[in-house]
């Protein structure tokens, strides 16, 4: 079977843009959360988020190109450009290079802006660019046009698992021989007045407004929800043969991909963690590795009361006695929850852990929930070689995707 390797990473995150800045942020235990700056949230019960401050699209887009795109799309193109740069891939073979990039929500800011125009000015006030700006496949389409990539191209929308499903499905495309190189991941910029109200009404968001840097606290007894984030993560995947042919630096292998559905509830995870456990097992089976070989887990770890408790149950279900040996980290403690981009950004964190030989920490874990009793690496990053890492992503709707990455033996 064709082996699929990762040769480049591009990330736009609240703790750093580009793989080096992102990794430095993780190693410093930096939090990307703060008071919301992009609009006045003073009337909201939640006034904090993890925004990408001073995001600059000009590194990879002209002003003209950027003006036609929603922010989620701009972030996706910039992350793709960074990933290609990181892979040293200035001119990928157009016919043999494809894109799988999704978003959890799409161009919500565009929808809100244009709805206001409709209400205030009537139908003629609505921009003819509204549809291309809001459509969830806009990121994947823009990436193909910006970089001239003619291979298979589509988008995935599985809420907070989008980025992980995209990487998994792109790896399958290479395995099946449909492409030699794929850009895969997710992008999200859905922090708007409407979505903030909606997520807050669900009770999904932390209300620790007076201490934003400590609001995302996965597995902690005082956790009270996730911190709304934004950003993008794109991986360059290649067949091992393609990478070898061009002498590319290989960061890790995409060893396994597993997916499942809870088929239980639209927002709550299955209380036994059965769906999550099935996805983890499927990914390990796909990689043909034993649970005892896993040396690091990048958890979904949202900092919601439900997720962290049930993900812990699921990990114990899959790993049994080995569970407490494995360093399980939620990098969302630092980045906030990047929704559709989260799975790809966390895949990048897992790959960097393998490639750079260190495990990031779960920050803000002051008093672990008694029901969350694994090794979450609360004390700070660990210098430790990692050969096999598992990255978990679980979306609203009960859609789950897990990825296994491995380094050189």
């Amino acid at each position, binding site marked *: 079977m064709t082996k699929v390797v990762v040769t480049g990473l591009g990330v736009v995150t609240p703790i750093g843009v580009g793989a080096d800045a992102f990794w430095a942020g993780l190693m410093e235990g930096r939090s990307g959360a703060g008071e919301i700056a992009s609009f006045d949230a003073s009337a909201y019960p939640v006034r904090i988020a993890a925004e990408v401050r001073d995001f600059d699209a000009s590194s990879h887009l*002209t*002003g*003209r*190109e*950027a*003006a*036609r795109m929603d922010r989620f799309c701009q972030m996706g193109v910039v992350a793709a450009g960074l990933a290609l740069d990181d892979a040293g891939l200035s001119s990928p073979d157009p016919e043999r290079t494809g894109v799988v990039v999704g978003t959890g929500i799409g161009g919500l800011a565009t929808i809100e802006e244009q709805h206001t125009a409709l209400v205030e*000015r009537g139908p*003629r*006030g*609505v*921009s*003819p*660019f509204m549809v*291309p700006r809001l459509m969830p496949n806009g990121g994947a389409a823009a990436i193909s046009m910006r970089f001239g990539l003619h291979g298979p191209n589509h988008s995935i929308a599985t809420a907070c698992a989008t980025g992980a499903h995209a990487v998994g499905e792109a790896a399958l495309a290479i395995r099946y021989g449909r492409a030699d190189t794929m850009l895969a991941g997710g992008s999200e910029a859905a922090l708007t007045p409407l979505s903030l109200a909606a997520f807050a009404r669900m009770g999904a968001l932390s209300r620790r407004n007076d201490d934003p840097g400590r609001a995302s606290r996965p597995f902690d007894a005082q956790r009270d929800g996730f911190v709304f984030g934004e950003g993008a993560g794109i991986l360059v995947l290649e067949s091992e043969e393609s990478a070898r042919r061009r002498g590319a630096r290989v960061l890790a292998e995409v060893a396994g991909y597993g997916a499942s559905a809870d088929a239980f509830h639209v927002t709550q995870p299955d209380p036994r963690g059965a769906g999550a456990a099935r996805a983890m097992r499927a990914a390990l089976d796909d990689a043909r590795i034993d649970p005892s070989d896993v040396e690091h887990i990048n958890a979904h770890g949202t900092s919601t009361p439900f997720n962290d408790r049930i993900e812990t149950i699921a990990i114990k279900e899959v790993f049994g006695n080995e569970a407490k040996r494995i360093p399980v980290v939620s990098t969302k403690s630092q980045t906030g929850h990047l929704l559709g981009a989260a799975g790809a950004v966390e895949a990048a964190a897992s790959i960097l852990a393998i490639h750079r030989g260190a495990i990031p920490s779960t920050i803000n874990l002051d008093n672990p929930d008694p029901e969350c009793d694994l090794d979450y690496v609360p004390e700070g990053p660990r210098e430790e070689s990692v050969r096999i890492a598992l990255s978990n992503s679980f979306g609203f709707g009960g859609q789950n995707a897990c990825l296994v990455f491995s380094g050189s033996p």
Partner: protein
Amino acid sequence: MTDRQEIFEAIEAHLVARGLDQDSITMQADLLRDLDLDSLDTMELTVGMEERFGVEIPDTELESLRTVEDAVDLIGRRIAVNA
């Protein structure tokens, strides 16, 4: 009274805000060939000018637009109609 220069400057400001190079925007500039404006760009420009000058420009009028000057003249005519 809205003069042609004011209309030109409004068009220029609209296009610069969308990332076009200010130097490329002249009265003689061809919307498609010189400025690379497609039908959606032209539609958006029209909507922007309708809002700016409080006029309505029928979509059927857009087909005849070739240069920036054509657009200035069209908007000027609609302002005169509405005055």
